[in-house]
C-alpha cells in the first residue's frame, strides 16, 4: 500500500513539476530581477509563490539524492519536492518557521521540529499566531500522552508517539463527488470558489484546508499499518501490559478483511477507538470511562451513525479482538474451532483412507488375506507344477 501511494505521489509530483517548471523558472527569474530593482513587493502573485521559500532552501534540497546516513545508521533523505510541498498544509509556512534552529547556510544537522511553536501565520478566526499546541495538549492527556500517568507507565517515554510518528505522509484526495480526480486540488471544485475569491492562492489554500478535513486522508489499511508500527510489536505490547496482538486479530475480522481488500468504508482502528465526534488525538485507554471501547461505551461506538446505526445494544457483545488460541479468555471461539477442526479431520481422514485403500486394491488386485482350505491349496500347487 505504501509503495502504491509513493508511486502515486511521485507521478503526481512529476506531472506537476513538468507543467509548472517553466512557469516557476520564469517567475523565479522575474522575481529575482524585480527584487534587485526593489519592485518585488508590487507584484503580489510572484511574491506569494516565492514567499514559501524566502531563504531559497530548495536551492539545495531540490536534489533527489540529497541524503546521508545519520549517527544511528539510518538512511535520511532530505529531498523536498516543491510541487508536493506547495500542495501540502504547510505551503505558506517558511522552512525556518519550523526548523528554527537553522541560522546559517550550509547548516548543521537540524534538530527535531517542535510542532507546538508559533508560526508566522495568523489564525483567521482569532487573529492570533497559529500553533498546533491545542492538539498537543489533547494528545498529552490521552492514552498516547504522558500527562497524569503513573511512574511505571512512562518508563519508556520513547515509545509514546510524537506528531510526525503518525503524520508522516501527506496524501491529498479531492472530494469524491468531483469525478475522475487524482491526488491534489480539484480544478472543477475550485472553479466554484474562484469566481469570488480571485486574489492570490486563497481559494486553493482554503479549499485544501477544508477538504482535507472533510474526508479520510488515508485508506483504512494504511491507518492500521500506522498504528501497527507500535501496537503490532510484541515487545512493545509486553512493555506496556497491553492485550495480545490486536493488529493480527483485527485483520481476522470482516472489518480488517474489507480494509485489506481496499475498501474505503472499512472501519480502521480510529473508527472504533475514538469517541464518535471527538478529536482523534483524544484516544483514551480502555479502562478509562472516557474511552470509546470502555465497556459502557462500546455499544454507542458500534452504533455510531455511519456504522451499525440500526443495531441493537447487544452488538457490544461482539468480540472484535479475538485470540482463537486462548481458551481462558475466549472459550466459545476456542472450543468451536476445536470442534470443527476434529470434525474436519475425522471426515477427511476417513474418506481419504478409503480412497487410498481403493487405489491400493486396484494396484495390487491379486493379493489376498483369505486363507484357502488345505486341499484347494494343494491342488493349485499341483496344477502349477504340471504346467
Amino acid at each position, binding site marked *: 500500500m505504501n509503495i502504491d501511494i509513493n508511486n502515486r505521489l511521485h507521478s503526481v509530483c512529476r506531472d506537476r513539476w513538468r507543467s509548472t517548471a517553466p512557469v516557476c523558472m520564469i517567475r523565479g527569474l522575474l522575481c529575482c530581477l524585480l527584487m534587485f530593482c526593489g519592485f518585488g513587493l508590487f507584484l503580489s502573485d510572484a511574491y506569494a509563490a516565492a514567499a514559501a521559500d524566502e531563504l531559497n532552501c530548495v536551492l539545495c534540497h531540490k536534489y533527489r539524492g540529497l541524503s546521508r546516513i545519520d549517527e544511528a545508521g539510518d538512511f535520511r533523505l532530505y529531498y523536498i519536492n516543491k510541487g508536493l510541498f506547495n500542495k501540502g498544509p504547510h505551503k505558506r509556512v517558511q522552512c525556518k518557521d519550523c526548523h528554527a534552529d537553522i541560522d546559517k547556510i550550509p547548516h548543521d544537522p537540524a534538530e527535531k521540529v517542535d510542532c507546538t511553536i508559533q508560526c508566522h501565520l495568523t489564525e483567521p478566526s482569532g487573529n492570533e499566531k497559529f500553533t498546533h499546541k491545542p492538539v498537543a495538549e489533547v494528545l498529552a492527556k490521552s492514552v498516547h500522552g504522558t500527562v497524569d500517568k503513573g511512574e511505571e507507565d512512562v518508563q519508556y517515554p520513547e515509545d509514546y508517539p510524537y506528531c510526525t510518528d503518525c503524520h508522516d505522509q501527506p496524501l491529498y484526495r479531492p472530494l469524491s463527488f468531483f469525478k475522475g480526480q487524482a491526488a491534489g486540488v480539484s480544478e472543477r471544485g475550485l472553479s466554484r470558489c474562484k469566481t469570488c475569491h480571485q486574489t492570490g492562492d486563497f481559494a486553493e489554500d482554503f479549499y485544501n484546508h477544508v477538504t482535507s478535513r472533510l474526508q479520510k486522508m488515508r485508506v483504512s489499511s494504511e491507518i492500521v499499518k500506522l498504528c501497527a508500527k507500535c501496537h503490532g510489536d510484541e515487545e512493545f505490547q509486553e512493555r506496556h501490559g497491553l492485550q495480545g496482538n490486536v493488529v493480527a486479530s483485527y*485483520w481476522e475480522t*470482516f472489518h*480488517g*478483511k*474489507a480494509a*485489506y*481488500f*481496499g*475498501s474505503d468504508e*472499512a472501519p480502521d482502528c480510529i473508527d472504533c477507538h475514538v469517541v464518535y465526534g471527538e478529536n482523534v488525538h483524544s484516544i483514551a485507554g480502555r479502562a478509562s470511562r472516557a474511552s470509546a471501547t470502555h465497556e459502557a461505551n462500546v455499544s454507542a461506538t458500534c452504533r455510531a451513525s455511519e456504522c*451499525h*446505526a*440500526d*443495531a*441493537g*445494544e*447487544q*452488538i*457490544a*457483545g*461482539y*468480540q472484535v479482538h*479475538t485470540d482463537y488460541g486462548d481458551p481462558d479468555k*475466549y472459550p*466459545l*471461539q476456542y472450543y*468451536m*474451532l476445536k470442534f*470443527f*477442526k476434529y*470434525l*474436519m479431520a475425522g*471426515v*477427511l481422514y476417513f*474418506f*481419504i483412507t*478409503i*480412497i487410498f*485403500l*481403493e*487405489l*491400493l*486394491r*486396484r494396484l495390487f*488386485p491379486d*493379493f*489376498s*488375506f*483369505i486363507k484357502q482350505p488345505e486341499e484347494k491349496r494343494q491342488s493349485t500347487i499341483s496344477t502349477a507344477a504340471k504346467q
Partner: protein
Amino acid sequence: MQRYPKIALRNGKRYFFRFSQVQRIQHIVLFSTVITLALTGFPLRYYDQPWAKPLYEFVGGIEIAPWIHRITGLILLGLFVFHTGYWIYLFFKNRVGRLIREKTLSVGNVIREFFSMEMIPNRKDFFDLIDMFKYLLYFSNRRPHYDRMSWKEKFDYFAPYWGIPILGPAGAALWFRDEITHYVPGIVLNAFYIMHTDEALLAALFLFFVHWYNVHYSPEKFPMATVFLTGYLSEEEMIHEHYDEYERIMKEEGLELEIIPQNH
C-alpha cells in the same frame, strides 16, 4: 414413469436410469452456487495468501463480491427449500398416495415408508460398509453389492443437508448483523462467523477431495462421470457400483438370463 424407462438402449448398450431432469437441474444449481460461493468466500478467509487478492479482484472485489456471495447464498437456500418441498411432495404423491389407494394408511406405515426411501440410511448400509472394508483390506474378493444408493452417495447427499442449515442461517445472521443484535447477544456473531467459515472449509475440502475423486479423479471415472448430465448409468458401472439394484431391475424388466456376474 414412462418418461424415464428404467433401461435405455443406445448403440446396443444398456443404460440404467438414475436421475430425472428436475434432479439433474437441481444438481447443476447446487454445484454452480457452491462453486461461486467458494470463489467469493475463500479469498476472504485466506486474505493474507498471495492468491487471495487477485482471485477476489477477479470475482468482483470488495465492493461487488460480497453481493454476489449473498445473492448466490440466497439461491442456494432457495434450492434447499425447493428440494425439501420436492421430496416431501414426491413422498406424499408416490408413497402416501399408494397407501391411501391400498387403504392401508396408518402412522406406522407412513413411518415405514419414510425409512424405506432410497436416501434414508438403513441397516444394509452398515453391512455394506463392513463389506467394503473387508474387500479393501483383502479379506474378501467380493465388492459390496450396493442397492440404488450406496452409503457413500447417502453421505454425499446428507453433507449439504447438514451443511446448508449451518452455513445459511449463519451467513444470513452475519449479513443482517445489525438487525439480529436486537434479539441475540453480540457474541453469537462470533460463533456464527466460526460456523460459517469452518463449515464452508469442511464442505469445500470434502467436495474437492472426496466427491470429485468419486466423479472425476478416480481412474474409472476420469475425466468425468457423465451420469449428472445424462441421468443414466452404463451397465458396466451399474454392475460395479449398484449390483443389487442391477439384478433387481434386470429381473423386473424380464432380462433375468442376461444378468452379468460381478467379477470384482
